[in-house]
């Protein structure tokens, strides 16, 4: 593969990720504001944004820090929020099977909803690039602008976070952000049930010791979804047999 192939693949990734940036920039600003608001100093907040590169998990974690939750619960909650990356890792792992170990570390670091969705569409679409050749550069082309925009907008939030008047209620943008992510993720009755069960458990679990409410709610919702799907599949099989 020539250097110009790599460059054009990278540029094509950049072009494809640009439409996703406008929604990510306010997310970064809001996450930055929330993070310094929870008592992180500016360096810690910037490091968190750059190293974790996962907005929903970061916001969930810093809120728990603000509520004085135990350290283990904070970290575990962030990891449960990020469990969906296991799915992406599995799906992309098939495409990146033949990459060098070093490249596998690089693509893994940048793996999140947007980079995954764009790359899978590219690798499974027409004229797909070879993931071990131009494809990896396409992937980086989607990832680098996203990471840069995320860290840049986080820094804006960190710097101006203290100056945003309380009356703006900017923290309300956080559940709104999650809603914007939630509805595309709902697909079929079992996933709606998973959401309803998790929502009810989260409300019921607000007073639970050690702030484990979100953890319990998320796991309960996942179990409800799996069970509902199992029941549905079972019922269909019974119908087909009768």
């Amino acid at each position, binding site marked *: 593969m020539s250097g110009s192939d790599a460059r054009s693949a990278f540029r094509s990734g950049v072009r494809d990720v640009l439409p996703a940036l406008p*929604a990510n920039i*306010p997310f970064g600003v809001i996450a930055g504001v929330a993070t310094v608001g929870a008592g992180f*100093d500016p360096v810690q907040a910037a490091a*968190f944004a750059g*190293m*974790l590169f996962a907005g*929903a*998990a*970061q*916001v*969930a*974690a810093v809120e728990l*820090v603000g509520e*004085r939750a135990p*350290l283990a619960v904070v970290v575990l909650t962030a*990891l449960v929020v990020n*469990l*969906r*990356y*296991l*799915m992406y*890792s*599995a799906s992309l*792992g*098939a495409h*990146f099977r033949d990459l060098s170990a070093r490249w596998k*570390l690089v693509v*893994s*670091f940048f793996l999140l909803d947007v980079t995954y969705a764009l790359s899978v569409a590219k690798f499974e679409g027409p004229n797909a690039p070879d993931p071990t050749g131009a494809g990896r550069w396409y992937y980086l082309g989607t990832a680098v602008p996203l990471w840069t925009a995320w860290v840049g907008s986080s820094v804006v939030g960190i710097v101006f976070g203290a100056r945003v008047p309380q009356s703006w*209620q900017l923290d309300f*943008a956080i*559940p*709104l*952000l999650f*809603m*914007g*992510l*939630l*509805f595309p*993720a709902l697909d079929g009755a079992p*996933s709606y049930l*998973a*959401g309803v069960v*998790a*929502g009810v*458990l*989260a*409300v019921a679990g*607000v007073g639970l010791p*050690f702030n484990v*409410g*979100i953890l319990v*709610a*998320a*796991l*309960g*919702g996942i179990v*409800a*979804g*799996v069970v509902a799907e199992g029941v549905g599949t079972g019922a269909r099989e019974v119908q087909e047999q009768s």
Partner: protein
Amino acid sequence: MTAQPLGGVSIWLVVVGASVGTFAIRLSFIALFGRLGEVPPWLERALKFVPAAVLTALVVPRLVYLDGALALGVDNTRLLAGSLAAVVAWRTESMLWTIVVGMGALWTLEWLPL
């Protein structure tokens, strides 16, 4: 029940712990492929529901709790604005519109002398 606020060292532990753990999650199957072949079906079945469950668990308490108490009445402006935003999110699946409408509704409800 509530501990002392986390000190500087603990905050760094949160940063490093969550980041390293998340990196391990991202790397998991990308690193294992070739040795593993495929994802265990039971795991795939469970992971499918992670986004729906996690995101709802993060959203709902923020809408129905007001100053630490359950508030399901019309005086809870966040619940009203959030419900409107949920309809927008459902119809448009656009993060930007969801935020614009939700924040706009909240400010309108707060500042209108109703």
